[in-house]
């Protein structure tokens, strides 16, 4: 296998990690502060100023951990926190975490800052200063071992499992061989694949943990009444959850599975990781992932620098914080939505390219995007973000075999 990849560069952070973007994150800590935070972001069109936040007024450990991981993500250079003032979110803890990571950070509390207009003006002034202070930072060489790449599928159809997903699998195998950490996810869409995955686990304990994790997903979705399957999946020729799962599973490639992550956990070095997105404990707070961006943000909270998004029906989303690369499975969809698609994996179906060709194209594009080239969704201004209530327990001892070794 080709284990080399093109040279990479990134921005060095105080914790030793490197980012591929130098973003100022503007963070609202309750929906009531969303508008003020959005007006601050809107003052910087075309700049690397991204809006993220949590809408709830009531505390949630998962959301707290997610926000801490996001403001200290290597792609983030500085953070402005916008709080209403009376919400439960631990804004001072978030500010301390960002400051301890060496990032410029500032909090504006609207209730103590003369309301909307003054808070927007102060926020704009601080972000302008943050952009100026980040601007002189130069990129430095970045090793493949420092890169984290995630994958997700959305708007899957019957072609996804034939073209885009196995092509990402080829790319994942090459990235893992080069030393990168790669993360695949959505245990609810791996129902039916658990025993195959178990055979790929680095240790027997991890194999058992993978089976238990998919069982949990099947139970969760059964209580909720239906699986991770949208009407468009059926319109695209997929009939059952397990058929969709098998196609989705192809994204993981053939590397051994090195560990299970929960949202916000960081990979312990290179290798292939499964992200467990289904909450622990009794079913509460509704669907585990109400839309694709809820999963993308969890992958980013695990440190993903870039996300490979495969689609058959044609999703157009991007994300705040980390670029999204679209790999289109269906040649007819590519024809309709080519401006939104980075890679046309439909060429595998029409016989114009092999899986290996498209897998190699994806690796090259990951390197170009890491080095600063904008993906299609990024250039179109997509910065979707969603964070909802969830609950997780810490990962069990079998989940990180590399750490235990």
């Amino acid at each position: 296998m080709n284990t080399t990849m093109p040279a990479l560069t990134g921005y060095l952070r105080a914790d030793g990690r490197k980012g591929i973007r130098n973003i100022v994150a503007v963070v609202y800590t309750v929906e009531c502060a969303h508008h003020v935070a959005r007006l601050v972001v809107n003052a910087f069109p075309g700049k690397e100023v991204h809006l993220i936040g949590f809408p709830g007024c009531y505390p949630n450990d998962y959301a707290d951990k997610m926000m801490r991981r996001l403001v200290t993500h290597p792609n983030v250079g500085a953070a402005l926190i916008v709080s209403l003032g009376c919400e439960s979110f631990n804004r001072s803890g978030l500010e301390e975490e960002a400051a301890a990571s060496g990032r410029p950070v500032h909090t504006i509390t609207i209730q103590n800052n003369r309301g909307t207009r003054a808070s927007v003006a102060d926020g704009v002034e601080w972000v302008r200063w943050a952009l100026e202070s980040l601007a002189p930072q130069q990129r430095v060489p970045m090793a493949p071992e420092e890169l984290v790449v995630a994958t997700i599928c959305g708007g899957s159809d019957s072609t996804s499992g034939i073209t885009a997903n196995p092509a990402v699998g080829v790319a994942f195998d090459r990235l893992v061989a080069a030393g990168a950490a790669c993360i695949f996810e959505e245990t609810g869409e791996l129902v039916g694949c658990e025993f195959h995955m178990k055979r790929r686990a680095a240790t027997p304990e991890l194999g058992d943990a993978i089976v238990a994790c998919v069982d949990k997903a099947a139970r969760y979705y059964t209580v909720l009444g239906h699986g991770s399957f949208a009407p468009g999946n059926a319109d695209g020729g997929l009939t059952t959850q397990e058929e969709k799962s098998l196609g989705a599973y192809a994204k993981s490639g053939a590397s051994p599975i090195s560990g299970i992550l929960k949202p916000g956990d960081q990979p312990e070095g290179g290798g292939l990781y499964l992200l467990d997105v289904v909450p622990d404990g009794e079913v509460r707070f509704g669907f585990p992932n109400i839309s694709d961006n809820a999963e993308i943000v969890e992958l980013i909270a695990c440190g993903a620098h870039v996300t490979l998004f495969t689609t058959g029906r044609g999703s157009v989303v991007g994300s705040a914080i980390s670029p999204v690369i679209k790999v289109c499975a269906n040649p007819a969809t590519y024809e309709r939505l080519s401006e939104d698609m980075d890679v046309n994996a439909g060429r595998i179906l029409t016989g114009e390219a092999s899986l290996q060709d498209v897998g190699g194209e994806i690796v090259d594009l990951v390197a170009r995007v890491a080095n600063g080239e904008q993906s299609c969704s990024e250039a179109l201004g997509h910065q979707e973000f969603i964070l909802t209530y969830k609950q997780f327990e810490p990962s069990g001892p079998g989940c990180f075999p590399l750490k235990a070794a």
Partner: protein
Amino acid sequence: MPTTPAPGAPRLLLMSQEDNCLIARTTLEAGEALAIDGVTVVLPEAIPLGYKVARSALRPGDKVLRYGAVIGTATAAVARGAMLHTHNLASDYIPTYTLGPDAHAFIGSTH
């Protein structure tokens, strides 16, 4: 940019030898004659790109395999060359939710 395979290229894909379904590589017309395992079959209905057709005749209760793995159970008799979808194939795990003619409908699972 072509959206269909070159003329003469196979029009149905077999994902794995043990499969009993085939995948339409492009949209196929009703009445089109295709060879399935050397036997000529006239398609009784149009098959959109990516949809499944039965590689062999199926009885209710037969497991359907794609990628060499079970993707569900036939809920009706299916002739060779007929479309396999939510009307005659159901999950062994969890029902499939579709936007049907009655707006919202669950297609029953085998459980």
